[in-house]
Every structure is written in structure tokens, then in C-alpha cells.
């Protein structure tokens, strides 16, 4: 009657204990994952983040208009976002990324942290209304869990609800906005640092806010084929451009929304956007002592890219994201 004894606790215990599984040690990977996750996760979203959506935002280009350097302020006049783009007439894009000092600073940056840096070689804009330039770099926070990523993003955004067969979320990142800073104070300090050190670049580490500026998500199948969904939160009306790189570019209407489907060699890309709820912003420009205010919409820009999927699979993904 040995069979009758099999279900005794002792027999079951012996069976469990007879298993010799390989030794594992996940402590390093757990600790490094935790370090890479923004500590904000353990706190409630800052009231600041809610205020950012709810409050009337003021996008002011004071003194920086000529280089498209936009300073976003909340209703309390705190700087919450700095956007920078080159002015095609007066300002050539300046790239610090190959500088060894810059690389050293960025490589040591923890995920979820930002640096504000000044490069003394950056040409001073010719326009007299334009100040010198500070740049901000935010180190992305990586995620392996989609729910955590969407929780942490601080904004609502569309994710694919229909995936090609065999695909699943693999990894993602969020690049958060930097926290507000006093432009003149930081600029003065960093300029002084460069003069004292004799180096071209000086930087100060800064905190990031709870708001995502860009989000990336990678989906893979078991053959390591992939597609990517990237999301950018930017103010502005213009989305579609006739990029000369595109060998094929086609506007398609899906669920009543217009999207752009493009191809560059093997790379297929879908570009689409949706209005960010509460994302209207006022742009204030100063020119010859005259203030002009313009309300602009803020959009969530989406791109879906892949070299592995077919056009139809790409469109199915896009359609599943359009509400």
C-alpha cells in the first residue's frame, strides 16, 4: 500500500526537497533595477504634477526667442520645462555629445536624474534678445514592466491593445522633465566653473519631475524581432513633414484619425498624434517691446517603427491605439 502513503505530508515534503534547482543570485539585478527606478514610485505623485496639467500654463520665450529656447512656467511663475531648438537663421545646432568631459558627466548619471550643462564653445546667438544657452539632459529610467511604466509616466497615453501574434512588451524607458531651475543663477555658476577649471563644459546635477517628456516601449517576439513605440509630449501644431528620407509616405485614415505611414529602406514608421488633454499653452513672445500671446495646443506624438513587421501589422497596431 505504498501508494496510499504517497500523499502523506512527509512523502510530499521529500518530493519537494528532492528537487535540486540551480543556484541563483538575483540580488545584484534586483538592487540595480531598484536603483534604476525612480524613487518617486514609492511616493504619491507630487501635487506639482497635477497642478501642471490643471493650471494655466505659460510658455514664455522671454529673451530666448531667437534660439527657440522656450521656458515653460506654471501659474506661480516657476519654470517647469525648458525646450531648446536651434534658430535656423542665427543659431547652428551645437553638439557637445562627443566631448569627453560631457561623456564623463553623462555616463555617471543615475537613471531619473538630470544635468544642466553649459558649453563655453557654444556660439553666442547673434540676436541681441537672446541669452546664452544652457542645455538639459535627463537620463532615462528603464522599465521591464508595462504597468509600472504607464503608472510612472504621469500622463495618460495610448498603448497598443492589439499585438501581432507572438509579440509582448519587452522593455521601455521614460525620460522625465527636469525640475524647475533659475536660469540666470545656474548660468552664472556654470560659466564661472568653466572659467575656474579651464574646461569647456560645466554641469550641475538636477532632479527630474514626475512628468514624462518622452516614453519608449519595445515589443519583441521569441525570434527577437521587434517593433518600437515612441511617444513625445511636445507643444506645437506641426507634425507631418515631407522628410526627403522617406521613400514612401502615405496619409491614411484609421478610426477617423489621420496618420502618416512611411518607409525608409526596410524601416517602416507610423506617425500619429493626439491632443493632450489640458495641454493648451500660452506662448508669450517679446519683440521690439511688444508682447504677443498665442495659445497653442500640446500634442502627444506617437511613432511606431519596425523593420520586422508588415505594413498591415503596423496599421493594426496603430488602429488599436486610436480611441
Amino acid at each position, binding site marked *: 500500500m505504498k501508494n496510499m502513503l504517497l500523499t502523506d505530508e512527509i512523502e510530499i*515534503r521529500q518530493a519537494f526537497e528532492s528537487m*535540486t534547482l*540551480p*543556484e541563483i543570485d538575483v540580488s545584484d539585478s534586483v538592487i540595480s533595477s531598484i536603483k534604476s527606478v525612480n524613487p518617486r514610485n514609492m511616493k504619491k505623485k507630487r501635487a506639482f504634477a497635477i497642478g501642471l496639467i490643471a493650471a494655466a500654463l505659460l510658455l514664455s520665450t522671454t529673451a530666448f526667442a531667437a534660439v527657440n529656447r522656450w521656458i515653460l512656467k506654471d501659474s506661480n511663475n516657476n519654470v517647469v520645462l525648458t525646450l531648446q531648438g536651434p534658430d535656423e537663421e542665427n543659431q547652428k545646432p551645437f553638439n557637445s555629445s562627443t566631448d569627453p568631459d560631457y561623456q564623463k558627466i553623462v555616463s555617471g548619471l543615475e537613471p531619473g536624474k538630470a544635468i544642466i550643462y553649459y558649453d563655453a564653445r557654444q556660439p553666442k546667438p547673434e540676436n541681441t534678445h537672446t541669452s546664452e544657452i544652457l542645455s538639459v539632459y535627463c537620463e532615462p529610467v528603464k522599465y521591464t514592466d508595462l504597468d509600472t511604466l504607464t503608472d510612472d509616466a504621469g500622463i495618460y497615453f495610448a498603448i497598443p491593445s492589439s499585438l501581432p501574434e507572438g509579440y509582448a512588451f519587452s522593455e521601455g524607458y521614460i525620460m522625465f522633465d527636469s525640475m524647475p531651475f533659475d536660469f540666470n543663477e545656474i548660468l552664472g555658476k556654470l560659466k564661472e566653473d568653466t572659467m575656474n577649471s579651464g574646461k569647456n563644459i560645466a554641469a550641475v546635477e538636477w532632479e527630474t519631475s514626475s512628468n514624462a517628456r518622452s516614453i519608449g516601449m519595445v515589443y519583441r517576439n521569441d525570434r527577437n524581432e521587434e517593433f518600437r513605440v515612441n511617444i513625445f509630449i511636445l507643444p506645437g501644431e506641426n507634425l507631418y513633414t515631407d522628410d526627403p528620407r522617406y521613400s514612401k509616405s502615405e496619409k491614411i485614415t484609421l478610426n477617423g484619425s489621420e496618420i502618416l505611414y512611411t518607409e525608409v529602406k526596410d524601416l517602416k514608421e507610423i506617425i500619429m498624434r493626439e491632443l493632450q488633454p489640458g495641454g493648451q499653452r500660452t506662448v508669450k513672445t517679446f519683440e521690439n517691446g511688444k508682447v504677443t500671446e498665442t495659445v497653442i495646443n500640446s500634442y502627444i506624438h506617437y511613432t511606431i517603427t519596425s523593420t520586422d513587421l508588415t505594413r498591415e501589422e503596423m496599421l493594426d497596431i496603430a488602429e488599436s491605439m486610436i480611441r
Partner: protein
Amino acid sequence: MDSVEKTIEEIKQGSLEEYRHIVQKYQHSVFKYCWHMLGSVEEAEDAVQEVFIKAYRKLDSYKADTSFSSWLYKIAYNHCVDCLRKRKNFQFVPLLDNTIPGYDTTAYSVEKDELTLLLLKAISMLPPEDKTVLMLRVLEEKSYDEIAEILGKRSCTVRKKYERAKKRVKQNIYQMKGVVINEEYAVN
């Protein structure tokens, strides 16, 4: 307050390195549990990582009046059930059957004892909740109250589940041996 609870308090205060000790202390038992639930070494190892990351993130919700390991198993159970759900259907995880494609038979070893093999296979055929009850009760020596806390069930329900799980194991063994019996007669 025992040493684990004390360590947890230190981690809550921001000592991340202390959390490493917690991971090292519990990872093997959680790994074993996840392996029995998921049936793959690779998936189980991933699950262990996720469980400890989730546990850290939820640490503020941990109360010292429950045992830390029970709290951890609750997270592990929920995580494994999520993993199984993502497979679209609950599947029995076949153990020790190298005819099943993709089933990992090389990464562990087991005594070549026929009865043990049969028993493990029979356990692997249990639904996730029953398997959890059996493992926590027999292997981890948890009380019914603790298992009830982990599964969010009443203690008396867990007791019944435990008895039923043992019975099912026996049925599974008989079925594997090609013997069909009436459940009523399978009770000890």
C-alpha cells in the same frame, strides 16, 4: 521585533543595501516556489527578480504584524498567477517530461526515484492555488491562517483546499499509472 522586521524598518528608512540581505535570504525559497508554479527555470528566475522588485516598491504597505515571508509569498503567488494568465490559458505545467517541447530538463536534477517522480508530476498537475496551498503548508510549514492571508481566503477554506489538493495528487498518480478510481475511495 525580530531581526527581519528590524531590517525591513531600516530599508524603509532608505538603506537599500540591507534589502540585498533580504533578497539573499529569501530568494531560494521563492525561486523554488516560482519554479513549481511556472515549470521553467528561466521563467522562475525572472519571476524571482520581479517579485523582489515589486516587494521593495510595496514595502510601505508591509505591516510587521504579519510574517515577512508570508507577505512575500503573497506577492510571488500573485505574480505567478499573472504570468500564467499571460500565457492566455492556465496550463498544467508538466514536470519531468522531456517529451514536452521547450520544457527544461537539464537545469535541475532530481533523484531517480519512481515514486518521487510520480509525486512531483502529480503535484505539477494541480491548479495554481492548490499547488500553492500544498507547497506552503508542507514545504514552508505555514499555518492555515498564514496561507489564508497569502491567498486572501478564509482559514477553513484553506484547510479544505489542502485536503482536496492531497486528494487530487493521489488521483493524478493513479491516473498516470493508468488506474481510474472513484474519488470517494481515494480518501485515506
